């Protein structure tokens, strides 16, 4: 009996068909990840709100409107922006393909 019992016990557990189980798990992981991202963004937003009260927004807006035309016509800056965009697009492409 002991040998037979050991054989029975040592048999692998009965195979359980996936039937979409793995997909459901991964879907919930995606949901959790998105929820966590929203919580992070919301927390950052809430934490940043009091700081906004002390930011001199009108002065910043004036400076931006003064500098924007100068920056827009700067060729090196345009080149750097284009390079950055290409790099980020390439990285996204690699991530989508291999993850």
């Amino acid at each position: 009996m002991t040998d037979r019992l050991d054989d029975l016990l040592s048999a692998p557990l009965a195979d359980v068909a996936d039937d979409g189980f793995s997909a459901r798990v991964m879907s919930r992981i995606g949901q959790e990840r998105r929820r966590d991202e929203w919580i992070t963004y919301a927390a950052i937003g809430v934490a940043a709100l009091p700081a906004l009260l002390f930011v001199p927004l009108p002065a910043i807006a004036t400076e931006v409107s003064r500098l924007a035309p100068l920056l827009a016509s700067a060729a090196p800056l345009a080149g750097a922006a284009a390079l950055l965009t290409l790099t980020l697009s390439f990285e996204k492409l690699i991530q989508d393909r291999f993850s």
Partner: protein
Amino acid sequence: MTEDQLARRAADGNTAAFATLVRQHQSQVRGFLRRMTRGDAALADDLAQETFLEAHRKISGWRGEGSFAGWLCAIAWSRYLMEARKRKLEPLDDAMEIAGDAQPETDSALRLDLESAMARLTPPERAALTLCFALGLTNEEAAMRLGLPLGTLKSHVARGREKLKTLLQAWQAAS
């Protein structure tokens, strides 16, 4: 790719690697939990889902010590214990004895198979026997995964085997 490499990739945020691990281990984890819940497939699947979600959150803690299946079963075991306490599924200690069923009646004994016999053991006995035999873990690893001292694990295994032997006695006579 080895299990360890997959786990490391998953820890780095690679979702595809974790999905592969889920596909590879879902059957074992669900099988283990079905045995723990005495065949309640719906509850076992809910617990298995929670197990994999927790594993995903803790994957960076995977150190490659022992088997990945054993690590998952440790999470599954703690999930099962929480649920059992919450729902009062069954006594979790050794209070559950088989004295009343020690000599199975002939007709019902014929229907006894390993799973129904297993269902009469205490949860630690079921878990210990499953990890040590069906999943092939060493006594040391099984004790670590179940959070038990080695001696306690061994006594659960020995007691579980004795109870199963008694329960399956009639089967032996029939064979």
